[in-house]
């Protein structure tokens, strides 16, 4: 009971905090801070409201797998999008794999 209320209050504080921070100029870190807070809030909900703190391994494997796959999707797609305009010069290629001439 008290755990639930504690988590609940933490979530509300997180919401207030994330909104407040948005009005402060942190440059690129605004997004980072917002996402870190969101991540913490998610972890709280999963651990306590969704009882994962008290569940066995299998549940955790499912959760980790889902986020791992989401990570695969994001990483590889971003990898393409961000490096798409790089054209390899022969010299960079030489430094990566020198034996390729």
């Amino acid at each position, binding site marked *: 009971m008290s755990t639930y209320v504690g988590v609940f209050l933490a979530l509300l504080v997180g919401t207030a905090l994330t909104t407040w921070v948005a009005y402060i100029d942190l440059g690129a870190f605004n997004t980072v801070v917002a996402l870190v807070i969101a991540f913490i809030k998610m972890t709280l909900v999963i651990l306590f409201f969704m009882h994962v703190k008290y569940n066995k391994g299998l549940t955790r494997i499912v959760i980790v*797998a889902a986020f791992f796959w989401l990570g*695969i*999707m994001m990483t*590889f797609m971003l990898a393409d999008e961000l*490096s*798409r*305009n*790089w054209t390899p010069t022969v010299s960079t290629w030489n430094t990566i794999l020198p034996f390729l001439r």
Partner: protein
Amino acid sequence: MSTAISPPHDVPAETRTNYLNASYGIRSWLLTVDHKRIGILYLISITFMFMIGGFAASLMRIHLLEPQGALVQPETYNRLFSIHGIVMVFFFLVPSIPATLGNFLIPIMIGARDVAFPKLNLLSWYIFITGSCFVLFAIVSGGVDTGWTFYAPYSSTFSHTSVVAAALGIFIAGFSSILTGLNFVVTIHKMRAPGMTWFRLPLFIWAMYATSLIFILGTPVIAITLFLLGLERILHVGIFDPAIGGDPLLFQHLFWFYSHPAVYIMILPGMGVVSELIAAFSRKRIFGYAFVAFSSLSIAVISFLVWGHHMFVTGQSVYAGLIFSVLSFLVAIPSAVKVFNWTATLYKGSISYQAPMLYALGFIGLFTMGGLTGLFLAALATDVHLNGTYFIVAHFHYVMVGGAVMAYLGGIHYWWPKITGRMYPDLWARIAATIVFVGFNLTFFPQFVLGYLGMPRRYAVYPAEFQVLNVMSSAGASILAIGYGIPLIYLIWSLKYGAPAGPNPWGAKGLEWTIPSPPPTENFEEMPIVTEQAYNYAGTEEEGHHG
């Protein structure tokens, strides 16, 4: 021990209560929650879809007899190959083995009375039927001409055909896959009989588990992708349109994030079936059981890391291309391990050449070729030349048809006595298997050459120098069609006239062969307790396995 089992209680198979005669009437089928009946429902549905896809393929091959096109207008030809692809991929190959044999066999093989969520299982079938109806509607309401790949912006902005209905059909059918995969994962985790440890599971179960993982983790992505595509088409605004800064390559990324693993949805169950067949017809435990089991899982995982090899010539980053290329080679390794282990299983076995085994051996050969020609496409320099040509078409038909469909037919033949309680004429089955093998190679081998020569795929008309090879391919297709027609006839014939099969006509191991054919509704009269490894043909008699 296995060969000598007589039906329990000496009741003739005709009169014993089983899942087929437990109740009658159309309602008892449409409202069934029995995994075996649901498997049959899927079998009928996907056979129907296979005929539609096959009909489209036949028309295409007739059309391509002449360079200028023998049969239809290019617009119609485009609809034919789109329908062929959409129906065959999403409505035949993806559900083929999982939804029919998987549904029928998973609970029995692991010693359970049913899947974990029987009602959800029935719901999956209804969702599948709903999705099929949308696609059938798309076919009759003007067809769809985007190819099964739905590349934006052609599909989102330029095509004038029923793209939304087709995409919606696939979107809906995707949820059928998701729920089926969910059901299988939970069933395999939670419903195994006492003593059925992970390493006593038949390899078919391992393969179905790996397949289910792809269902669960891949299908939602194609669902959201087609959802976005549909919205973009309906609202004329969206996120793939380059006119407002959208990236059509993002659509391809999202599409292949599912659709490359989907290739393994099609082939992994086939690998599982072949493992069962090889073991049963050489009466040996599969050589390197653990390696074959884990190769299924590693294929499932790595399959998610290689999708970019479909995009080497699209303008994807060169660096991303290099990463996707090396990972694509990685997925070849577990496939190779499987092939070697299957072949090694034959060594010092007791091999019989009944029809299912012919299909299994055909699978190994054709899958080997399909897999090895994949190396040409994982390799960047050769892919540039071969991408988008008939080489691709030949390659994936070797894997999908030579692999998945051969395994599906082999599995259907192997478990047909269990499913129906009847034997089919084995001679006809062997003839059909041989015809399929010959017809298949004649159809698709020339396409490798066509591709290397540079003939692009999805061409309604083509330069005259390619005609000879195209005629060969079409000739092979007609043989292949005969090969697929024969089993349909004798299997239906066997329902009425086939000899009663008995519980274990092949002398095979596995829980499914310990129960009567057809199985009773509850599968097992007493909960089985498993005390031995899978395929324990040579092992000592450990009783308690069946009652």
